[in-house]
């Protein structure tokens, strides 16, 4: 006779049914990243050596700001998912794993929001 519920007995033993969602977001952001990356790479390359005022004006123009905004959101999300997979693959210790995933999420959020802030500041003419 056990006091444990059927759910309690199987918890932690298998799928959490989150695998498809991870896969889907990984692929969705991957597809989005292709055109966005090409746009960002070429727009940066064609402005190498540009002085500060022109660079600020260029990055702050609506189309470029929108592209950068989307690129930052999509790639930070993508890299967060990717790093989570890597952490799950190589860190077996449960506590360390959770700490590493937390640290990774914080890193992504800091990078993402500071980049977004910089772009929006340029665009709104701060």
């Amino acid at each position, binding site marked *: 006779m056990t006091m444990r519920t059927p759910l309690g007995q199987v918890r932690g033993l298998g799928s959490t049914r989150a695998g498809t969602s991870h896969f889907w977001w990984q*692929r969705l952001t991957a597809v989005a990243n292709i055109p966005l990356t090409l746009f960002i790479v070429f727009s940066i390359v064609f402005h190498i050596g540009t002085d500060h005022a022109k660079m600020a004006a260029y990055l702050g123009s609506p189309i470029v700001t929108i592209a950068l905004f989307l690129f930052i959101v999509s790639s930070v999300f993508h890299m967060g998912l990717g790093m989570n997979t890597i952490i799950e693959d190589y860190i077996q210790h449960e506590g360390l794993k959770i700490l590493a995933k937390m640290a990774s999420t914080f890193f992504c959020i800091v990078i993402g929001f500071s980049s977004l802030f910089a772009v929006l500041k340029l665009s709104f003419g701060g």
Partner: protein
Amino acid sequence: MAKLKAPIERPLSPHLQIYRLTLTMLMSIAHRATGILLYFGTILLAMWLISVATGPAYFAFVNDLFSTYLGRLLLLGYTWALLHHMLGGIRHLIWDTGVGFERKTVEILAWTTLIGSIVLTIGVWLMGYWVRGGLS
């Protein structure tokens, strides 16, 4: 209360030390490695964007930092990692549709990714130096 069952000893799959190194295996490792590089490389992008938003002095400082040999090496590596990861990603997206698993196709895709990433990186950098107006 019933004793908790010990986790089942599942068989472990053979890993790097067991398998002979193949190109496709190397590309799989490269995809993950470039992913990790890009993850930390975003620091460079964030730093650069923040420098533009901060003002001319900090912008000049970051530009000077990126212009050093180490800076350029990092940016070159970042460019290659980005393009390699992008092409490798396209390879994975092709596989996601359920095609391209034949041995020959897999080899072609691997070589295309590797050579393509190097050619594109050189192309992007030549374009950069051309925009900059020479090798300086």
